[in-house]
């Protein structure tokens, strides 16, 4: 399993041709208390950078983007009932959705954990 990160502060864990996607610890700390999550529909075909999910904190609404081309296979229903999980465990239990990769070559342009850490330092 490999983990990748995006400039939009999302993480992906890739196993075979399926990626599990969520937002990073840095993202949740910036958002503040999450009160609502809107998940993508299963089976939806998405292109890289499409807005596919929404996370709302007490402060504002933010989009969650598709990190790659592909098809949504599952949304994390836990977040619908317990949106605060996003603050508690953003890089674990509070994943947003799983997607089947459409173009695995796109992974090469994403960041490693070390690169992402360095990127966050610059912000």
């Amino acid at each position, binding site marked *: 399993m490999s983990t990748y990160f995006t400039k939009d502060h999302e993480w992906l864990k890739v196993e075979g041709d399926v990626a599990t996607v969520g937002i990073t610890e840095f993202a949740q700390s910036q958002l*503040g*208390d999450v*009160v*609502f999550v*809107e998940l993508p529909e299963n089976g939806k075909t998405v292109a890289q950078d499409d807005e596919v999910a*929404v996370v*709302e*904190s*007490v*402060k*504002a*609404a933010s989009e969650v983007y598709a990190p790659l081309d592909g098809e949504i296979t599952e949304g994390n229903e836990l977040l619908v009932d317990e*949106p605060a999980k996003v603050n508690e465990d953003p890089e674990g239990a509070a994943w947003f959705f799983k997607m089947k990769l459409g173009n695995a070559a796109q992974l090469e342009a994403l960041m490693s954990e070390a690169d992402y850490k360095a990127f966050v330092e610059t912000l």
Partner: protein
Amino acid sequence: MAEATDLLKTPLFDLHTELGAKMVPFAGYDMPVQYPLGVMKEHLFTRESAGLFDVSHMGQAWLVGPDHATTAAALETLVPSNMKELKPGKQRYTVLLNDNGCIIDDLMVSRPLAAEDDGRLMLVVNAACKDNDYKIIAAALPDNVKLEIVEDRALIAIQGPKAAEVMALHAPEAAEMGFMEARPLEFDGISVIASRSGYTGEDGYEISIPAGAAEAVAKALLADERVEPIGLGARDSLRLEAGLCLYGHDIDENTTPVEGNITFCMQKRRKEAGDFPGGERVLKQLAEGTENLRVGLLLDGRAPAREGAEIRVPGSEEVIGRVTSGGFGPTLGAPVAMGYVPSKLAEIGTEVELVVRGRALKAKVAEMPFVAQRYYRKPK
């Protein structure tokens, strides 16, 4: 956006930094939007115990005239509330109106308790409006009434069900005050002016303090475990749940007190006479109603509808109004909003749709406040 160096600092700026606040520009000031506790917990803590707010960015000023009747009469030319009848030691909410009867700002006015202060009225106005307010007020005053802008005082608020017991430890006479009363107090030996009022729907006080003593007062209150510092984020969600208007959003220079549904600020004598700016129009609206009205809105799901969201009649594409304030209400555990709808659709329970990200969410016109106000009324 202004550079950080252009922003004004309140006398409590160093304390905010020490407390780990996240600072944001607000009305020209560098203000704490939240502390490490976070907006949600700060909100809930205030409703459960007590929160301390720095509201020193707000404008404090005195109107000074030869006697109460003269000063009150001068202020009454600008506002639709009874000021002549305001008793010593009492506070009143009012609005500055323009010639269309629309709201230039909303403000608190208090009359000092002491006989030697007769002829003085203390004003607290919104930070973003203060310069304009002062210009308008000064221009309208007769020669024997002066506007004295207060620049050397901080203003803090302590709000919540435990505010009174904490306050009484430092200023025992605070306990004798009822809601919307104002008086000077000795707070641990520091002379302050307090009112029993606020902007959260809870019991509590607003305390005007000489700038140099503000940190001592704030620290004395924060030393109590029943008190946490609260930022502008929770201040907004608290006032929204309490159904209180935010100037520039829920009421502004295009809305009258009738449209804004705040006619409680107008007393009988003024409503009969209409002797204030835009009086004729406001009286006509009182008699015949208005086209639109500010209402509370409760949504069915968990998704908040924020400022600007369109309001529609269910099943219709026609936009009938917009949300003017909206967000998640932590105490209610649900999204809350307020906005303007045609008066014929303003009845409690009317079904509407709020458009969020292109999707129509079901909502109902709802009674405000969303969370019951818990002001302290003195036993008669």
